[in-house]
């Protein structure tokens, strides 16, 4: 799921720290934003915008962190509004809802672990390429600004 790849150049200490912070940012936002999924996305987006003029290594990892938040954002938002509908409207708790919440837990937990691992490795200057998100990031993120 996560591959170690050789980056185009060896990132400096400062770059590795910044790139690692993009994962930490999404990690903290993930914890803070659990009740309101939009918070994760906003926090990562703000960090991404702040670093959009950074070096290629920093931009690449900020983009990967942001993209990985997108799919979770949609999944969590659906779960959030479904729960609201159960609490305040006429929807009821059924097997499909509980299964959805468990699926969310599995996906969020996987993302959580992958993010911690990435933050640690990227801090050491290791270039981690996530399954799907890595390919998408490479397609979006240009080497030169």
């Amino acid at each position, binding site marked *: 799921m996560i591959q170690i790849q050789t980056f185009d150049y060896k990132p400096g200490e400062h770059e590795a720290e910044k790139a690692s912070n993009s994962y930490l940012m999404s990690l903290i936002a993930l914890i803070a934003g659990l009740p309101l999924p939009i918070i994760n996305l906003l926090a990562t987006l703000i960090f991404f915008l702040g670093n959009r003029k950074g070096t290629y290594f920093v931009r690449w990892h900020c983009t990967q962190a942001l993209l990985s938040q997108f*799919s979770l954002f949609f*999944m969590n938002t659906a779960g959030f509004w479904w729960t609201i509908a159960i*609490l*305040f*409207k*006429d929807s009821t*708790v*059924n*097997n*499909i809802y*509980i*299964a*959805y919440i*468990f*699926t969310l837990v*599995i*996906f969020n937990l996987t993302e959580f672990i992958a993010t911690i691992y990435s933050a640690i490795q990227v801090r050491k200057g290791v270039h981690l390429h996530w*399954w*799907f998100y890595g*390919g*998408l990031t490479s*397609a979006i993120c240009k080497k030169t600004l």
Partner: protein
Amino acid sequence: MKKVFLQSFLLLALFLFCWFSLAQINWTSIFEVEKSGQELEEKLGEQLWEIYSREGREVFNDDIIQSLDTIIHTICHANKIDQESIKLHVLEKDEINAFAMPNGHLVIYTGLIKASENPEELAGVISHEIAHIELNHVMKKLAKEMGISMLISITTGNGGAIAEVAKLLSSSAFDRDQEKAADLQASDYLVNAKIDPKHFADFLYRLSLDDPEIMRYITWISTHPNSNDRAQNIIEYQEGNLVISEPILDNATWKEIKTLVQ
């Protein structure tokens, strides 16, 4: 790029597979969702009734209770509602009020019987409250205003908050959509029970008039606002429907219970 598209479909497929596989498990019975919800409702219903029963003297007069039981039986029987699920309590109070509580407790103040001009009007208000019970509006309202965790804490010993819940149920309104749904449902109940919903609409319309004598005791209207519009909605909803109307109580019985509540 082709590889990325393929991976995105795979990711989506993995999500859906995970979701639908987990949905095959009967989680609601594992977590006893219905049982725990039912237990919570039962406990809340009992605790709330304990509070209300202290507020006024409960009426046990056979004529009054039997007449109201007849009305409830007619509505329930015609609409295939389990009459056992409705627990009627009549309290001696001048306020014009009736309200539903968790677990099917239905509280009627004698003031409401006094204010009704005929048994069909009273049946209209009772149908409206039964509709709130059947549509599960009571628990939804409590969950919305108090939060599920607060309701659970009440049943496990947080005594202070129960008074707040009691106040909420007897003196605050359901939301507009729920009121409308309960009105229309009540209107259907009445038609099925061969009672013309026009009487219920008349009652609502009369409450919307600023009669100072009525306004002194009117609580039901403050918890059920826009009575004039609601009366209009009921009339429009049943417009064109041929309603076969039969008396729900005979005149002598109605006169007797009116005398008893005076």
